[in-house]
């Protein structure tokens, strides 16, 4: 139990810390999860091969080591850039992301995997239950994971710093060891008890005497050297840091500056606000999604015609912190009676709120994660369009250039441009360091000219620093737009849709150029992966294992578990993401969804444990489960394909359906693992548990890394599901053609 708890807590906390180290995009998220998973797999494999005599001792030692390595890993994450000789403000490329997460997660992940399988053999030894004991341990670990997951995400992260959490875990583990040691008859009992008690005492001291706090602050100073950090905190959504430099406050989100006050990036703020605002005859009702405070609202308030500004910010903590470290700029913005704050996901606001606007500004970052991509899709643009008044204008910015467009930057812009042109009849793209996209239902943006904008500016009598007649003439010169258009011509890029998040892929390939240009070739080839290539690949895989099967019995089971591990990771991703597509990213709901999934896994394994007789013909049951998983993928595909139009009509039942689907997918996976154990008769329980647990995790590793970046964005949902179905069919075939025991 303590294992499950410790594992999920460690994984969660380290993931968040590492995200700050990597300025996390989708790929790094996958890499981090993947690295954790692979070390668990290796740890469990080794645990499976451990000599039974020493299992007990090894178990206790590994628990103690785990508790120590957890806080140490956090510390290493914070000082990693210093160790690696990288300046703290410098971003990290893909390869360093890879090896640093592999190194940092090694001890904790490995030890966690190790002690799970050791626990299995120890449990077996104590109770002599044989193969079903693995199922029991798996179930209890799941339970611990659920409890730990809920506790850490809902409560711990926002109230305690990482060191407090990790030392708390150490304490619980140490206490578990103590009680464990007492209840057994071990030769080196006294040493173990002494060690565990030491650990407990140290933990208690550190926790109560603000020792953990001191360590946290010390580590933070190393991570942010020579900076005056006036605030450090975690919300459900992100880590927020405030750095003070003279009279300037910079607010960082996961290590990246998000806004600066009191003097913002004037060029950005003025162009982003005034160019669209002046393109509209008289904008009264404004909606700004993200990035409102810190300059934009200030510019909006300059317009006498503005009557209402609805400002959507997902994370209440950010606004709270902005108010604490207030400057005349942000005070003016947040205190204005015209401004209404909504703490909600932007897409959700658009679908639920019925208000109509003259201007909708999208102030969110470009599609660097699956999450962020949702705001650049056809579906989002359609929702925005439906909330616009007739002559309303929708505005967004995207990474651009006034100098040169690489192929990657072209594809990113073409993709978003075609997507927005697909939805809005009139689109005006103003190239710049950030390309400004303005779209309208009626002719508004087509009428844009420097003279028109300037006359409106004069008419309002607005004071601006940068925007004047000559600046307008320069920026809106035909030459620039012609140049931009000529660069976009001849480049093909897919539309960006919720269930085909190509925008994310294009952005990742572009960002990759900054830090790891040597990987350009990899992305060039990855782009070409399609359904045919994948099916051919799976067929080849099948052949290999088919041949392997002739030599090693039980290969089919391992293959089955591995592919299920992969499939389940992808399914979870699809379902969680699908939910967000429809209902937005609301932290609490996502947390419950994940818990539902885990509960399903627990329930599944519990069923096998509690009703062994039903599963006497384990092999048949296993085949049956495999078939069920295949069918599930198919049903999921069909549901999601036809879901979108239905979602608007029956919101409640469809939400319930997501929970149900997650539970079922978890249950299927949960059933399969203990079943696989029953079938995979090996010389010892520990041994079979090890290999299978490892295979499960290995499949999950590939799924974790490849899922968010390759499978989903490149193939899209429907093709991705077909790949899964094909994969499970291949494992089914393998089973059917294997020699039965």
């Amino acid at each position, binding site marked *: 139990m303590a294992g499950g708890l410790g594992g999920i807590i460690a994984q969660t906390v380290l993931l968040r810390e590492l995200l700050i180290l990597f300025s996390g995009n989708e790929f790094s998220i996958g890499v981090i999860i993947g690295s954790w998973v692979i070390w668990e797999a290796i740890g469990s494999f080794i645990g499976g091969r451990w000599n039974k005599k020493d299992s007990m001792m090894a178990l206790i030692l590994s628990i103690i080591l785990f508790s120590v390595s957890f806080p140490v890993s956090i510390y290493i994450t914070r000082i990693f850039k210093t160790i690696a000789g990288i300046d703290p403000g410098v971003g990290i490329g893909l390869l360093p992301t890879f090896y640093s997460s592999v190194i940092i997660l090694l001890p904790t992940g490995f030890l966690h995997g190790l002690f799970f399988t050791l626990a299995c053999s120890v449990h077996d030894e104590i109770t002599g239950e044989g193969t079903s004991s693995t199922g029991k341990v798996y179930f209890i670990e799941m339970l611990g994971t659920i409890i730990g997951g809920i506790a850490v995400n809902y409560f711990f992260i926002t109230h305690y710093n990482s060191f407090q959490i990790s030392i708390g875990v150490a304490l619980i583990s140490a206490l578990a060891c103590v009680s464990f040691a007492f209840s057994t008859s071990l030769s080196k009992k006294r040493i173990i008890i002494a060690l565990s008690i030491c650990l407990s005492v140290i933990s208690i001291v550190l926790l109560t005497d603000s020792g953990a706090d001191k360590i946290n602050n010390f580590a933070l100073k190393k991570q942010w050297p020579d900076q005056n950090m006036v605030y450090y905190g975690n919300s459900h959504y992100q880590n927020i840091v405030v750095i003070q*430099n003279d009279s*300037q406050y*910079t607010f960082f989100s996961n290590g990246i500056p998000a806004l*600066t006050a009191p003097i913002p*990036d004037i060029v950005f703020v003025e162009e982003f606000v005034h160019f669209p605002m002046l393109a509209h005859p008289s904008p009264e009702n404004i909606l700004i999604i993200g990035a409102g405070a810190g300059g934009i609202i200030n510019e909006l308030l300059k317009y006498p015609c503005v009557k209402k500004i609805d400002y959507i910010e997902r994370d209440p903590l950010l606004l709270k912190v902005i108010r604490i470290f207030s400057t005349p700029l942000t005070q003016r913005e947040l205190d204005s009676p015209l401004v209404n704050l909504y703490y909600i996901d932007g897409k959700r606001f658009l679908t639920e709120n019925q208000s109509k606007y003259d201007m909708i500004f999208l102030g969110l970052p470009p599609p660097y994660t699956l999450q962020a991509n949702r705001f650049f899709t056809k579906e989002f643009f359609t929702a925005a369009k439906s909330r616009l008044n007739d002559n309303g204008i929708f505005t967004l910015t995207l990474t651009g250039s006034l*100098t*040169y467009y690489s*192929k990657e*930057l072209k594809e990113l812009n073409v993709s978003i441009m075609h997507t927005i042109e697909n939805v809005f009849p009139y689109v005006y793209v103003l190239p710049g360091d950030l390309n400004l996209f303005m779209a309208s239902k009626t002719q508004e943006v087509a009428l844009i000219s420097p003279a028109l904008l300037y006359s409106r500016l004069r008419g309002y009598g607005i004071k601006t*620093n940068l925007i004047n007649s000559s600046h307008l003439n320069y920026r809106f010169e035909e030459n620039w737009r012609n140049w931009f258009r000529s660069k976009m011509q001849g480049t093909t890029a897919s539309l960006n849709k919720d269930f085909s998040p190509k925008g994310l892929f294009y952005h990742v390939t572009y960002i990759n150029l900054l830090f790891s240009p040597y990987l350009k070739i990899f992305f060039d080839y990855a782009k070409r992966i399609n359904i045919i290539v994948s099916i051919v690949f799976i067929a080849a895989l099948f052949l290999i294992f088919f041949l392997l099967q002739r030599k090693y019995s039980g290969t089919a089971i391992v293959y089955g578990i591995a592919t299920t591990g992969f499939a389940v990771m992808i399914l979870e991703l699809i379902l969680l993401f699908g939910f967000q597509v429809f209902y937005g990213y609301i932290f609490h709901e996502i947390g419950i969804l994940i818990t539902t999934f885990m509960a399903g896994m627990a329930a599944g394994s519990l069923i096998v444990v509690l009703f062994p007789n039903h599963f006497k013909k384990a092999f048949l049951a296993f085949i049956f489960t495999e078939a069920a998983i295949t069918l599930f993928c198919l049903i999921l595909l069909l549901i999601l394909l036809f879901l979108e139009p239905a979602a608007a009509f029956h919101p409640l039942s469809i939400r319930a359906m997501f929970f149900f689907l997650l539970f079922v997918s978890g249950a299927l996976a949960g059933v399969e693992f203990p079943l696989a154990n029953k079938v995979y008769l090996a010389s010892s329980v520990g041994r079979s548990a090890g290999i299978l647990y490892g295979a499960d995790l290995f499949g999950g590793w590939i799924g974790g890394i490849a899922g968010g970046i390759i499978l989903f964005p490149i193939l899209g949902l429907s093709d991705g599901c077909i790949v899964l179905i094909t994969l499970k069919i291949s494992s089914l075939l393998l089973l059917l053609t294997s020699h039965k025991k």
Partner: protein
Amino acid sequence: MLSRRNFIKIACLTPLFLNTKPEILLGSNNNLLKEALYYEKYDEKKQIALCQLCPRGCTISEGSSGFCRARKNIKGKLYSLGYALPCAIHIDPIEKKPFFNVFPRSLSLSIASAGCNLRCKFCQNWQISQVSPLETENRYSPPDNIVSLAKANNCKSIAYTYTEPTNFFEYMLDTARAAKNKGILNVSHSNGYINPEPLKELCKYLNAVNIDLKAFSQEFYNKVCEAELDPVLETIKTLKKSGVWVEITNLVISGYNDDPKMITKMCEWLKNNVGIDTPVHFSRFYPMYKLTGISPTPVSTLDRARETALKTGLHYVYIGNVPGHPGENTYCPKCRKIVIKRAGYSMLENNMKAGRCKFCDEKIGGIWNA
């Protein structure tokens, strides 16, 4: 000289392999691949070339390129890959380069070929500076074409900028020569990492140069740009001696080069070596390229830098990237009135007459209309 077959192979296949569609017009001119200047055949047998264009002094083996990625050794001869193959051609106001004391409100035809001999972690044009001309989409534009383009578009000057112009030295030299013949000014924005000899040859045609003095610190140049400070200082001195108009840009990055002592030293050095008429632009930094986790420079830091520079005696000290800041204006050193009022790149007021202050007739340093 390269055989026609080999040349076509190299020029065509390499870009094809890299999946780019270069807009290269082959034409029938075999001299498209331009042999470089300022190199020496270091080892004839092993076909190793020693490049002498910039302080790096790369020894380049056959088939390899130099650190700048823009000069390549083919069968023992060094070639300038970016010659007549710019990847960027744009018309910008001269203030963008930035030049505040040169023909205000004039247009500058700005060109660049890919490549750079530095590796600054905050490079704004990294897309073309950190790659070779073989990886970019280029437009074949021999020097005369560039000059005609400038004339046709009423550009008073041609600017060699965006990337490091030293890397397309031969192209810059030929174009500058042609431009001078046609009465068009030559300006450039450079990191100053060039050897004195090639620089002196270039100075025959250059009118104004903006040197990016990244920091007055050896350590900064080593750590953040993978280069050295001294060669840059030498370049600045050489330019001044050659009579070229020099403006200095210093991008101020919090925690890296904003130390007041460093800035004071820099201003003193400038005063003593280039003169108080040398304009200095202190620019505000925003997260860029690999420096993603650093706050923007506080404007107060820039204010202090400007104060320091003015106290040292420098006449023209500007603040960049903060539109609306009084530091965007040119002030008369004598009567302190605003002779040129600016916002961003736009000129709002011109109180000058034939290079002098309209109010007190003091001469204003720079290159002005007659």
